[in-house]
Each structure stands twice: as C-alpha cells, then as structure tokens.
C-alpha cells in the first residue's frame, strides 16, 4: 500500500515542528523558566519563550507552578536509603498538622546534582541525604535557604567508613601459625598494616568513583598520608596513641609513603582487590559475610559488625578497625524557592528530634548525629564509633574530587 503524500507531508511537518520545539527549549534553558515546560501540546508557548531571559514567566503564576499549593503538606527530597517507620511519620504529621511526602532519588551524589539542576524549580521543600562529600556543591550553587539557626544545613546522621576484618579467619590463621596460642600478632589494626606481607592478597577496597564508602576510604587515606598538591599534610596511617595517629611502630616496613598515591601504589602491589559497590564487595568477596567470599579484610562501616553476630548473639564474628575510619555526615536543609519553607523548617526540626533520631540505626543503618541519642543494644555493644576519625574539609573534597578519582583510577589500573 502506497504511503500517501499527505501522510508524508504530515510526517515532515511534525519532524520540523519537534526540531523547532527542541531548539526553542534549548535556547531558553539558560534563562531559568523554560518555554517548553508544558511539553509538546503548546508549541506556540515554546516558540514565544525562545528569548534568553524569560524569568518573568515565573511571576503571577506562583500558585500554579507549585507542585503542592496547599501549605498543609511538606515534600522531602531524599535518597533511596531514606526510611521512616509508619509510627514516626504519623507522629510528625500529628504534631505539625502537615502531610509528609517523601521523594527518594538514587544516591547522595545523584540527589545533590538533581538539587543543583532544579534550584529554580525545586522538587520539594526540604532535602535530606546529601553527605559531607557533596554538601559543598549545594553551598557553591546556592541551593539551600537559611535555617533559623543561620546555618544552611544540619547533620542528621553519621556513619564511619572503616576497614572491617573477619575475626574468625584471623583467629584460624593465628592458630595455624602459632599453635601455642599467640593470637593477634598478624591481625591488622591500622592502615599501615594493610601493606604488610602477611596481609598480602587479603584486602578488598571499593571503587571510590562508584561507591560512597569507597570514596570515604580514599578520603581516609588522603587524610592519613596527605596530598601535597591540595596542601593536605598526612596525619599518619598508624594506630592512634594518646590521641595522635602515628606512623606505626614498624615504620621501617613502609618508609616511602609521602602521599596517598604512594600508599595506594603499595596497596596495589600488595594485591588489593577493588569491587565496584559495597554489596558486591561485602557479599561476594568478604569472607566475614558468610556468603563464600575469600578475603578477610574489606572496606565497610563501623556498624557492620552489629549484623554479624554469632549464634547466641554474644559476640560479633567481624570487627571494625577504629583507627582507619572516615566519618560521613548526612545533612538536611531547606531548598531555595520552596513552596512551604515553614513546613520545611518544622520537618528539619523533627529530623533532629529524639523520636526520629532513635529510629535511625534500625531504619537506615546509621548513627544518630545528635549526641546522647539512645542506641540499640547490639549497636552499643558491637558497633562502637571511631573516637578519632580521619577528616577532610568538604571544600577540599569538592575542589579535588575529579583529580583524586582520576589519579586513583590511574594508580589502581595503570
């Protein structure tokens, strides 16, 4: 059957139309308000909005533009790991008279970038879940409104990325090597120890480009061994003695570590295995997860040992090395151009309240950021936090992230 000229003409017309439409939309993106926001059914509006500055479109139309015009509801934009129990949610709604809508999107980085891109037309009123490795980006792009405390963001959760070990594996090895019972001499306790011959081929790191704890561990090594180019002097990768990191008692074992790059080069020589994600590394490669993995040392969290208790629950079969930790904070704040900033303020207050904070370990597997919050028993017993975690300034992270990740990839695969 022959395709009629009319239909072909229509096809050409639509093609031309859609191209024009796309062209106009592209031209107006930089101007803030977007001419084609209403999509293809108003091509006319699209072409009229083609000018560079059409921010005026915003005026007089605030109500229609709001995703949630009534001030009785508040929208929280967060990550996929956000969780709130029904009871806690109900408590918030009863307390404030607000209806809470939760919009989860992907990871912390994904969330931060979406918040930046949607600054002029935010997805909600408040955000939660951007961590200290990404918060600078929100500051730089002026995404957050000022809180009553004059700050722009508040910490809600914290968690320590630490090297974890399979205690059973090391106990067994110690027994094989020292049948008399000299235990502990070969078990690693700090970053330096991961370079020793006895721990060759035992360590699983995570790719910092694709994994958040992976980035945390990279930052720990940067804080420990320094990055001269960024002006970061290393504090040392040995154990903490009297509140100071040391270079370790056996510093003659690794005398050439002048930077984190040196450290990673030696980790590579010592047979580090890099996994793309925490779940892949922990469940497939780590022997302590009980899923058939073969390596007894991995990058994980200080809270992980609370989930590897033995049968009677009296001890954990894994341990976090507390001298190897980088602390992650997850922040909350009010979004610029929010529809309901008052509601957002109340929500953030609630996220910092004991009711919500006490729920964090069981709901989201992180520690409460507000000091003095009661921890679950198994956490208090088996998942202590680091007394002195490594720290890197968020602004330095934002400024050097790309270079660090590129250099890291070069070193590890190079």
């Amino acid at each position, binding site marked *: 059957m022959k*395709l009629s000229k009319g239909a072909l003409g229509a096809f050409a017309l639509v093609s031309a139309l859609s191209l024009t439409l796309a062209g106009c939309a592209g031209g107006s*993106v930089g101007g803030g308000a*977007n001419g084609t926001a209403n999509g293809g059914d108003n091509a006319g509006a699209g072409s009229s909005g083609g000018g560079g500055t059409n921010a005026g479109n915003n005026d007089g139309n605030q109500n229609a*533009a709001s995703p949630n015009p009534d001030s009785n509801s508040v*929208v929280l934009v967060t990550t996929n790991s956000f969780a709130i129990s029904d009871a806690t949610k109900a408590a918030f709604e009863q307390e404030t008279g607000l209806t809470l809508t939760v919009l989860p999107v992907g990871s912390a980085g994904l969330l931060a970038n979406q918040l930046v891109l949607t600054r002029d037309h935010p997805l909600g009123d408040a955000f939660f879940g951007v961590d200290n490795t990404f918060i600078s980006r929100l500051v730089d792009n002026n995404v957050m409104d000022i809180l009553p405390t004059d700050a722009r963001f508040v910490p809600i959760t914290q968690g320590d990325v630490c090297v974890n070990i399979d205690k059973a594996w090391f106990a067994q090895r110690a027994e094989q090597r020292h049948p008399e019972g000299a235990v502990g001499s070969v078990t690693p306790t700090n970053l330096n120890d991961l370079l020793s011959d006895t721990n060759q081929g035992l360590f699983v790191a995570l790719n910092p480009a694709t994994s958040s704890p992976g980035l945390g561990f990279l930052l720990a090594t940067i804080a420990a061994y320094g990055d001269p180019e960024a002006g970061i002097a290393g504090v040392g990768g040995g154990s903490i003695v009297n509140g100071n990191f040391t270079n370790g008692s056996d510093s003659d074992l690794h005398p050439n570590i002048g930077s984190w790059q040196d450290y990673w080069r030696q980790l590579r020589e010592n047979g580090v295995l890099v996994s793309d994600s925490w779940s892949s590394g922990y*469940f497939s490669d780590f022997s302590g997860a009980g899923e058939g993995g073969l390596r007894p040392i991995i990058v994980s969290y200080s809270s992980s040992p609370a989930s590897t208790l033995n049968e009677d629950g009296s001890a954990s079969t894994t341990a976090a090395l507390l001298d190897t930790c980088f602390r992650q904070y997850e922040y909350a704040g009010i979004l610029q151009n929010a529809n309901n900033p008052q509601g957002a303020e109340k929500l953030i207050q609630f996220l910092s309240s004991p009711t919500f904070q006490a729920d964090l370990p069981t709901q989201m597997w992180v520690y409460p950021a507000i000091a003095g919050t009661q921890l679950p028993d198994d956490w208090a017993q088996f998942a202590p936090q680091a007394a002195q975690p490594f720290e890197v300034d968020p602004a330095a992270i934002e400024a050097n992230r790309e270079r660090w990740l590129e250099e890291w990839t070069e070193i590890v695969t190079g």
Partner: protein
Amino acid sequence: MVTEIVPAATRRAPNRNRPAKPLKKRPTPYTLALTLAVLLPLTFLAVFFFVPVFNLLSRGFGGESGADWGGLLTVLTRPRTWRLVRNTIGQALVGTAITTALGIPIAYLLYRTRFPGQAVVRALVMVPFVLPTVVVGVAFRSLLRPGGLLAPGGLLGGLNLDQSFAAVLLALIFFNLSVVVRTVGGLWQRLDPRQEQAARALGASPFRAFCTVTIPALLPAIAAGAALVALFSATAFGVVLVLGGTGYGTVETEIYQRVTVFLDLRGAAVLSILQLVVVAIALTVSQHARARSERAVAVARAENAAHRWQLSNRFDLVSALVTTVTVGLLIVAPLLSLVIRSLQDGTGAWTLANYRALNTATTGGLIVPVTTALAMSLRTAAIATALALPIGFLLALVLSRRPRSRSGRRAISGFDAFVMLPLGVSAVTVGFGFLITFTRPWFGLDLRTSGLLIPVAQAVVAIPLVVRTLLPVLRAVDPRQRQAAATLGASPLRVLRDVDLPLILRPLGTALGFAFAVSLGEFGATSFLARPDAPTLPVVIFRLLSRPGQANFGMALAAAVLLGLLTALVMAAVERLSGTSLFGG
C-alpha cells in the same frame, strides 16, 4: 504463496471510498488516520524523549554563554575517551555476534519444533531480561569466583573470567539471548514450511535448503534482533560496573559518572553524542542488512509450521544440544544459584524464612511489605505497557508501508532509525533531561514528582522493542495480500483487521511481554526519578542489598526470585493467550 484466504470482501458490497484508486487531493479518512498514526507517536517521543535529551545536551554545550567548542575538543582529545569508545564498540560487536549465533538455534528449537515442556523453556529464556543487574552481578560473581562453576578449575576450567571482558560478555549473553530468540522465533514460527519443502523436493540438501531458503527469509528478523542486542550491549550499565572491574568502562558508564558524580554536563553531552554516533553506525549497518534482505515471505499459520521434535532430524538434534548447553550454563546455573541461596539461611540450612520475612514491613527497615512493592511494580508495568504497545504498534504500521517514491522510502528509513534512538541514549541523560524540562506543572500537577514519568520513561525504552518485534512480521506480509483485499472492496481498516491483525497477534503478544518485562525489571529511570509512592520490587532489592546482614542478603535474593518468577508467569500467560485462544487455534 499466499496461504491465507481473505474472507472479508466476499460478503460486502464495494466500499464508497475505494482506496484502490490513487488518492485525490481531498483527504480521505484513511489519510487522516495515517496522519494521526504518524503524529501521535511522534508527539509522544518528541515530548518525552527528544526535547528533554536536547535540553540536557544543549545545557552541556554551554547554556546561555553559547556553544563551547573548546570543551568538545578537550574531551575528544583525551586518550581515555577513545579507550571508552573502543570498549563500547568491542563489547557491542562481540556480544552481538555471540548472542545472535547462539540465539538462532534456540529460536529454531523453541518456535519451529514442538516438544513437551516447551512453554517452560520459552518463559525461562525470558527471565534474565528483567532481573536487576545488581542481583545478576551477585549471581555471576558467585559462579565466577574461585570454586564456582564457571571459575578456573570449575567446569569451564582454565578461563580466568572474573572481573574481565569475558565476564561482561557472559552477562550480556545472559541478558540478551531472549531478544534474539523472541524476534527471530516470532517470524520463524510464521514462515511457510512449504518453500523449504519445495527446495528439498527439487533435490537440495537440508543444509542447502536451510541456507538458501530459510536464512534469507529470516534475515530481517535476525538483523532486527542483532540491532537490538547491539544497542543493549553498547549501552549496558550495571553488568559492566559489577563484572567489568575497575578501570574497565564504556561510554555509558562514563556518562553516568560524569552526570551523577561530577555534574559535568559538558563531558556528558560530548560523550552522549559520541554514543549516538556509535548507535547510528550500528543502526545504519543493520538497516542496510535489512533493506537488502527484506521482502515479502510466505507466512503461514503457526500450527502448519512447527513439527514434532525428532531425534533423527539433524537440525533438531543440533539445536537441542546448543540450547541445552547455552541455557543450562548461562541461564539455569546463575538462576539456580539464586534460587538455592534464597531458600537457605546463613548457615546453609533450608528454610522459607527469607520469603516470609519479605512480607513483614518492619524487618530491616524495608518500609513496605513485598506485596505492596509487587503491586506497585505491576501497576507501573501495566501503565508503561499500555503506553508502549499502541504507540509502538502505530509506528510499526507506518514503518511497514513501502512507498513507491524514493523520497518516501528514505523518509521511512530515516523515521525507522529515529524511533530506535531511545535505546541508544543513557537513562541518566533522559532522567536529568526530564528534570530541567518539565519545570512547570501540567494542569496543576508537577510531572517530575508525580511518579507518572517513571512508566513514561519505561515506555520510551519499550517502544523501540515493540516496533522491532512487530515490524519484521508486518513487512513480511505480502503487499499483494492487502491489495487483493482492497480490490475486493475491503476498506483500509478492514484490510488492517482481516489481513494484518491476525498475522501479528502472536508477535503482538511477544511485544506486550517485552514491554512488560522491560518495565518490571527497570531500575535506571526508577532510581533517577523521584516518586512519591511505594517503591517497586527492583528498588526494594537494591535497598536490601545495601544493608549488611545475611538476612537482608537472603531477602534480596528471595525478592529477585519472586521478580523472575513473576516474569516467567507473565510470559507464559502471554504465550498462552496469543498462542491459542486469541489466535483462534
């Protein structure tokens, strides 16, 4: 040649609008309908794909400050960029070649012969298509690590596959086998066996008859399937991350990283365009192969075509062997390892605890019981399918026409490539494009946060699949069959109903299955786009896997098994519907 008699016209007086005559200037209802058939899907794709993607790319290229060609040059002169392109092309080429070579004998066995349990195998082949990549990664890694079935010293000893190109290839075959099997099988089962029989009767050996009659007739479907696999392989994301290992990356993984980690829209835009170039080349090659081979072939009712499987038939035997080995090692082994682990607790004892735990909302902070997630998954998939199927059908209908004029044919061929593009653009590009495009509410509803964009985004990806599934069959319909019906007085709609529709009912079922499966297993758009309602099953699996504890791991695997089971059930149901009752056996 024409094996179906058209009963339509005999009972009916000649129609007033005789389409047998050349069309006049005045638009006929037929022209209007055809125009609408072009307009509707095109508008959908323009609004929900081309405009958002264009917006993001143009912002990447400098936004208000004008085009930034220096940035383009910086990205293009990096050696890393070209390494990524090389990986992408190599992965797509090798993955497609192996998948197609393995898929053809399997399609033969599943659609050209009959044997007990066939429906089960057909459904089984489909399952990998929907499994979340995180889970598949875990399953494969358990087979690939020392001591595993596919590991050095294992069954396929000597291959060091873990974290390598080869591991990525295995996973690509695992995911995409169903695409080749379905597209090729869809046409093959409709192929009139009498042509091959005629060749045999004239003295051709079975092999010669196969090569000179069957393969040429199947080429359009093979090209279509291969093009899809090439696109899926070039843009594969999760498996590349999990199995490729550090340092191995493709253009797709780099775009993801540029957008989600660095907010480097310029780099992402340049890479997206590179990816589009690669995709365009792949499409042109397949288009070329198809154009040369595409012609009307005799299609028959399914029951004529398939024969009972026979040990004495060499084709049957070889195809059964290939299927057993491929499906056994690449599909059954990883799936079985998932099922087994989901039925064990941490100590290896058999239990149903993982499944029971799935239904208690509070365990491990799951937030919703699995039944809620399941219902959410089904609802989203149903909406996505309801969008993709009619739109894809209309597109396929338009694309199946063969205009007489050269320019008409060119337009059709260009349109064809255009429709395939959604498969070649990164989900993250589309997702972020949505965010900066739909900034104003539609009728008081912010589309970006309504959750509606998720099925829409899934439909955009499913549409090319629907088109590719229907098109080979529609194009294979002898145009004379339609002309005969028209000459006998059938209206165009009636021709559609009585000639085209009965022939494509089964492929329509396949397309429906594909669309549904794509949506069920989809994780990309689902995690990029905010949604206010309950999470889907893949999101729940992801959440479970990101928590420590064997219980959570076991639950994640149990949820993955449920998702796979659900897919298999849907596939089997579709098969049954389109195969017997609807088709009118």
